[in-house]
């Protein structure tokens, strides 16, 4: 079903892509643009291995390369796609499609996008794949888990969006409504706990969602307040146990993912905060000889962060954040939570080249870890150092 859905939408994109040059009079009229970026990071942790890398020994296993193609065959029609090659620890080493969409923008008040479109579910969700656009090496993991980035980033479906001016006294309202299907790969961060429990999800997990977001650009310059809700419908996928010898089903129940956001920019100073909740439950059904035919599985993830940054010079910025995550469905202990203080800085050498450095003090093990790469067990706290170089064009 998901593959058929995906094929249909990518078919529409392909059709528009083929049709676009016909509409445009020449290649120059297409306004074809090619951009990209690449980053290389070095990870070092004091105790636990993080992001599936051998980070306690120091690891360069975080590499990303992105190419972005866009065309504007007609003033109101934009076609764009972005492909990524990434290695994160033992994951990745593959090409993934971040998005591929055709956009028709009637005006600033209304536009539509179809294909694999970015999901505007939270303040930075549509930017979380664009490392050159933010100062942090790692966005707050309570809301933007990097190991689930690909599944959270975009959905196969459609999006309507626009900005409604409310007058000088009331600012502007930025809205988006979307619907489609998301696909979690078998190694997605949300599936890691399931794998840690001995199960396998050979086809990953997919579900249909529909949602919307509202962001109020208040009349106070720089102040933005937002809220978003995504309703995820029921879904059922195959699951395996006992090294693949037993096959059953993993049936997820519908849930709502709500996010509330606020940000304020004033001159060189920026602050932002977000809260999000994902209450998920599912039933794992396995045939005999598995001793329990129906195993409930659930998490109630609640994450929030507060961040502040300051542009010290035109090229140099620094900031800090506190990111907290709690799984209210988990047993009490370090695996139930993650509290992360991060101190970060970025220096832009020029328009193309930048460097980042970030120090984390992480208490709790609920985010960023797996057990197969921490065979001695997880320690309750870890310090993480990230050094990153990036180039974009």
């Amino acid at each position: 079903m998901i593959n058929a859905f995906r094929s249909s939408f990518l078919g529409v994109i392909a059709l528009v892509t083929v049709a676009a040059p016909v509409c445009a009079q020449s290649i120059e009229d297409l306004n074809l643009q090619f951009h990209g970026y690449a980053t290389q990071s070095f990870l070092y942790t004091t105790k636990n291995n993080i992001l599936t890398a051998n980070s306690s020994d120091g690891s360069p296993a975080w590499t990303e390369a992105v190419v972005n193609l866009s065309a504007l065959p007609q003033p109101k029609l934009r076609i764009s796609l972005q492909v990524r090659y990434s290695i994160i620890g033992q994951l990745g080493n593959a090409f993934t499609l971040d998005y591929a969409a055709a956009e028709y923008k009637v005006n600033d008040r209304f536009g539509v996008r179809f294909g694999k479109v970015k999901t505007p579910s939270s303040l930075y969700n549509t930017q979380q794949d664009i490392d050159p656009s933010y100062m942090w090496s790692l966005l707050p993991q309570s809301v933007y888990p990097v190991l689930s980035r690909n599944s959270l980033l975009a959905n196969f479906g459609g999006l309507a969006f626009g900005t409604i001016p409310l007058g000088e006294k009331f600012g502007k309202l930025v809205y988006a409504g979307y619907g489609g299907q998301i696909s979690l790969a078998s190694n997605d961060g949300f599936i890691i706990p399931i794998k840690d429990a001995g199960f396998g999800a050979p086809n990953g997990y997919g579900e249909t969602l529909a949602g919307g977001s509202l962001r109020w650009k208040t009349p106070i310059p720089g102040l933005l307040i937002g809220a978003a809700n995504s309703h995820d419908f029921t879904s059922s996928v195959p699951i395996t146990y006992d090294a693949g010898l037993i096959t059953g089903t993993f049936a997820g129940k519908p849930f709502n993912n709500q996010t509330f956001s606020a940000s304020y920019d004033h001159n060189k100073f920026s602050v932002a905060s977000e809260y999000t909740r994902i209450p998920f439950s599912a039933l794992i059904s396995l045939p005999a000889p598995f001793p329990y035919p129906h195993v409930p599985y659930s998490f109630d993830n609640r994450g929030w962060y507060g961040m502040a940054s300051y542009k010290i010079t035109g090229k140099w910025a620094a900031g800090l954040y506190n990111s907290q995550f709690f799984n209210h469905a988990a047993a009490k202990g370090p695996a139930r939570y993650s509290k992360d203080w991060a101190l970060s800085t970025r220096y832009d050498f020029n328009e193309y080249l930048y460097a980042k450095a970030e120090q984390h003090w992480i208490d709790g093990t609920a985010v960023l870890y797996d057990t197969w790469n921490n065979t001695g067990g997880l320690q309750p706290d870890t310090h993480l150092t990230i050094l990153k170089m990036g180039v974009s064009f």
Partner: protein
Amino acid sequence: MKKIVGVLIGLCAFGAHAQVIVIANPKLDISEIGRADVYHVFTGGSSALGNGTKVLPALQNDGKVEDEFLKNYIHKPHAAFMATWRSFVFAGQATLPKSLESDAEVVEFVATHPNAIGYIDKASPHADVKVLPVK
């Protein structure tokens, strides 16, 4: 004597700054432009002015005209300005505007594209376009 040399150096330095003006295609139905509109359309935040008029911005490559424009209206250095644009491009929300090499190219582009606006040094010839006072 030292004072005179100092004054001359000061005058030369002052002369090195371009006096930037915002220009538009004569068919564009506006006679002035707000500072907020300049900021939003030249940083990719909006494709239209506050009154709904759709515009097509043209950029200039790094140089004294661009530096002065960014300093006066965008309040960002070139690298940060381009980073902002690339964020929109990578997000699939915008296409980087034409980036032209000289005032003459900007004037030609603006004069030949009905919704175009750009910025040039006031001293450069601009008979085929109209000047938009920035309010």
